[in-house]
C-alpha cells in the first residue's frame, strides 16, 4: 500500500515537473516570438526615419505605441520566466498561476494590438492623461479603452504571479525581510545563513511590482472613466506621477528578475558558486527602497512638480541602480576571473547582460541630472540609454537563459550560434551608439519624419537594428526547432547544470 502511495507520489511530482517544464517552454517561445516581432516594429520605425521605407506618420505612431507597450510587457514576461525557473528551486510556487499569467498576457496583448492596428490607438505606451481621451478623431474612446483594458489584464496576471512568489518566499523564510536577507544585511545573522541570490532578487522584484501594479490599476481605472465621462477629470500631474511610478517600477523590475540568470548560469560555467555576503544583501535592500522613490526623474521637465521631489529624483537616480549593479558586476568578474570558464553563447550573453546594464546606466545617470535633462530629455539620448540596458542588458540575460535551455538538445544549426551572437552584439552596439550620438546632436525623439542632417544617424541605427534582428532571429529559430525535443526530455536532463559543472 505504502509502496503504491510512494509510486503515486513520485508520478505526481514527475507530472508536476513535466507541466512546469511545458509552461516554461511555452513562455520562452512566446517571449522569443514577440521579442522578434517587436524588434521588427523597431527596425521599421528606424528605416522609416532613415527614409528607407515609406511609413505614414499615423502608422509610425501606432508602431511606436505597440513597440513600447510590447517591449515593456515582453521584457516583464522574459524576466518572469527567468525568475520563476530559478526561484522555484528554493521556494514553493504554483504552476497554474504561472500559466495563468501567460494566458492573461496573451489576452492583454491581443487587446493592445487590436487597439493599435484596428482602432488606431497611438497615445504612446505611457498613455499619459489626458491624451487617450483627446485623439482629434484619430482613434476612438473604445480603442483607447481596449489598450487600457489590455494593460489591466496583463497587470492582473503579473499581480497573481508576484503574489504567488511572495507567498512562497514568506512560507519558506517567514517574512519578505528574511527573503531579502535583511538580517544578514544589517549584521543580525551570519552571511552564510542568508538566502541564495535568486531569492533576494525575486523578493525585491515582486515587492516593487505588486506596489506598482496596484497603483497602476488605480490610474488606469480613473483614465478609463475619463474616456467615457470626460467631465470626470483629475490632475494631469498626479496622473503622470502615478503612471511613471507604475511604469518605472515595472520596467526596472524586468532587469532585477532577468539578472537571476546571471547569478545562476555563470557559476555553472565557472565551477564557482556565486558568493553572497553582507554587501550583496545590503545592495538588494537598498535598491528595493530606491526603485520605489526614484521615479520623479521622469518628471524633471515638469515645472509644476515640487522642487524637492525633483531633487530627490536626481539624487536617487545617481544611487538607485548602483548597489545591485556594482555587486552584480563585481560578482560576475569574481566568478569569471581565472575560472577557466568555457565561453559559449549562453555564458557570453549572461556576461554581456551585466556589461550592457552597466554601460546603460552611465547615459541614464547623465539624463537624470536636472540641467542635462532639460536639454537632452526629448532627444534620442533617452532611447539610447534605455535601449542600452534593455537590449544589451535584460534581453541579453533572457537570451542567455534561452540558449542555455536550448543547449540540452544538440542541433545541426549549432554552428551558426557564434555568428548569431556576434551579429547581436555588434548590431546592438551600433544601434545604441547611433541613438546616443543622435541625441548628443539634439536629434529629437518620437518624430516620424526626420530632417536630412539627421539621416546619417538613422541609417547607421537601421543597419544596427537589422543586424540585431538577424542575430536574434537565428537564436530564436535555433530555440524553436528544439522545442519538441526539449518537451520530450526527462526533467532531470533539462536545463540542469552542464555536465562538467554537475561533475564539479
Amino acid at each position, binding site marked *: 500500500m505504502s509502496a503504491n502511495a510512494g509510486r503515486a507520489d513520485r508520478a505526481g511530482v514527475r507530472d508536476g515537473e513535466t507541466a512546469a517544464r511545458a509552461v516554461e517552454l511555452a513562455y520562452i517561445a512566446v517571449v522569443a516570438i514577440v521579442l522578434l516581432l517587436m524588434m521588427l516594429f523597431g527596425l521599421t520605425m528606424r528605416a522609416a526615419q532613415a527614409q528607407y521605407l515609406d511609413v505614414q506618420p499615423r502608422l509610425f505612431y501606432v508602431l511606436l505605441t505597440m513597440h513600447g507597450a510590447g517591449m515593456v510587457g515582453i521584457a516583464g514576461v522574459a524576466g518572469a520566466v527567468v525568475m520563476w525557473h530559478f526561484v522555484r528551486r528554493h521556494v514553493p510556487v504554483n504552476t*497554474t498561476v504561472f500559466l495563468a499569467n501567460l494566458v492573461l498576457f496573451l489576452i492583454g496583448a491581443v487587446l493592445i494590438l487590436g487597439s493599435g492596428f484596428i482602432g488606431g490607438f497611438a497615445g504612446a505606451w505611457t498613455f499619459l492623461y489626458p491624451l487617450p481621451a483627446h485623439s482629434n478623431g484619430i482613434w476612438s474612446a473604445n480603442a483607447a479603452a481596449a489598450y487600457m483594458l489590455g494593460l489591466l489584464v496583463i497587470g492582473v496576471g503579473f499581480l*497573481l504571479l508576484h503574489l504567488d512568489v*511572495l507567498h512562497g518566499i514568506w512560507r519558506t523564510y517567514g*517574512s519578505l525581510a528574511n527573503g531579502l536577507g535583511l538580517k544578514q544585511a544589517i549584521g543580525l545573522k551570519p552571511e552564510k545563513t542568508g538566502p541564495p541570490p535568486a531569492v533576494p532578487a525575486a523578493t525585491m522584484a515582486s515587492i516593487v511590482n505588486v506596489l506598482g501594479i496596484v497603483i497602476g490599476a*488605480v*490610474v488606469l481605472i*480613473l483614465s478609463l*472613466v*475619463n474616456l467615457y465621462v470626460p467631465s470626470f*477629470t483629475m490632475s494631469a500631474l498626479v496622473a503622470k506621477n502615478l503612471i511613471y511610478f507604475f511604469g518605472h517600477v515595472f520596467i526596472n523590475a524586468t532587469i532585477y528578475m532577468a539578472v537571476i540568470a546571471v547569478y545562476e548560469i555563470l557559476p555553472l560555467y565557472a565551477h564557482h558558486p556565486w558568493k553572497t555576503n553582507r554587501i550583496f544583501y545590503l545592495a538588494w535592500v537598498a535598491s528595493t527602497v530606491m526603485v520605489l522613490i526614484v521615479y520623479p526623474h521622469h518628471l524633471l521637465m515638469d515645472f509644476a512638480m515640487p522642487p524637492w521631489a525633483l531633487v530627490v529624483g536626481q539624487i536617487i537616480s545617481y544611487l538607485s541602480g548602483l548597489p545591485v549593479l556594482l555587486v552584480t558586476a563585481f560578482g560576475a568578474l569574481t566568478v569569471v576571473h581565472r575560472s577557466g570558464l568555457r565561453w559559449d553563447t549562453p555564458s557570453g550573453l549572461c556576461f554581456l547582460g551585466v556589461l550592457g546594464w552597466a554601460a546603460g546606466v552611465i547615459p541614464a545617470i547623465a539624463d537624470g541630472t536636472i540641467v542635462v535633462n532639460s536639454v537632452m530629455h526629448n532627444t534620442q539620448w533617452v532611447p539610447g540609454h534605455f535601449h542600452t540596458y534593455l537590449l544589451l542588458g535584460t534581453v541579453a540575460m533572457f537570451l542567455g537563459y534561452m540558449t542555455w535551455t536550448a543547449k540540452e538538445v544538440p542541433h545541426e544549426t549549432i554552428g551558426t550560434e557564434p555568428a548569431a551572437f556576434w551579429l547581436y552584439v555588434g548590431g546592438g552596439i551600433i544601434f545604441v551608439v547611433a541613438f546616443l550620438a543622435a541625441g548628443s546632436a539634439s536629434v529629437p525623439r518620437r518624430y516620424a519624419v526626420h530632417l536630412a542632417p539627421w539621416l546619417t544617424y538613422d541609417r547607421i541605427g537601421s543597419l544596427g537594428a537589422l543586424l540585431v534582428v538577424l542575430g536574434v532571429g537565428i537564436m530564436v529559430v535555433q530555440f524553436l526547432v528544439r522545442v519538441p525535443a526539449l518537451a520530450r526530455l526527462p526533467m532531470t536532463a533539462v536545463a540542469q547544470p552542464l555536465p562538467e559543472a554537475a561533475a564539479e
Partner: protein
Amino acid sequence: MLRLAAAAILWFGLWLPPLRSGLESDMALHMTVQIPLLAVVGILIAPEVRRFEPRWLAEADWLGIPGIVLVLFSTSCWMLPVALDSALGDWRMEVAKFVSLPLLVGMPLGLSWQRMPPLGRLFVIANIISKVGALGGLYLAAPIRLCAYYRLDQQAEAGSALLAVATAAIVGAFLASFFGWSWRRPFRDAWKGHRAVATATDASPSLPT
C-alpha cells in the same frame, strides 16, 4: 458568546441616533467608519454562526470564492452614491444597510476567508486596495455633487479619506508581509474553539499545481 455580545453592542451603538446621525452627517465618516464597522459586526458573528452552518453550504463555498464574490458585490453596492443617498432618505434602505452589511459582507467574509487559498486572500486584499483608491480618486475627480445629501466639499473630503484608507492599507499590508506579521491571526483566533466542528472544507486548500 462574548463576540455575539460585542457584535450586538456595536450594532445597537451604531443604530442609536447620536452615533448614527453623527456618522451619517459626514460623507467621509459614513463611508470610512460606519460602513466598515457594520461589516465588523458580521465578522464577529461569523464564528458563532459557523457551528450551525450546513455542510452543503460549506462545501458549496468552494475555496471561499462564492462568499468573497458576494462580499465584493455587496461592498460595491454600498460604495455607490445613490445607495448612500437612499439610505439617508428612506428608512427602509437604512434598515437594509444595517442588515445587509453585517449579513452580506461581514459574515461571508468571516466564513469564506479561512477557506480561501493564501494567494486568493492576497489577491482580494490587492483588489480592494485598488478599488478603494480608484473610488477615492473618482470622488475627487467628480465635477458635480454625486450625493444629494452631501456638499461638494464633503464629497472631496470623502475622496481624500478613501485615498488615505487605501494608502494606509497598502502600507500596512506591505509592512505586515515584510516583517512576517500574519493578518490571518485575528481570524484564526476568532475561530479558536470551533475546530471540533470544522469540516474538511475548512482546511486552507491550495490551487491545483
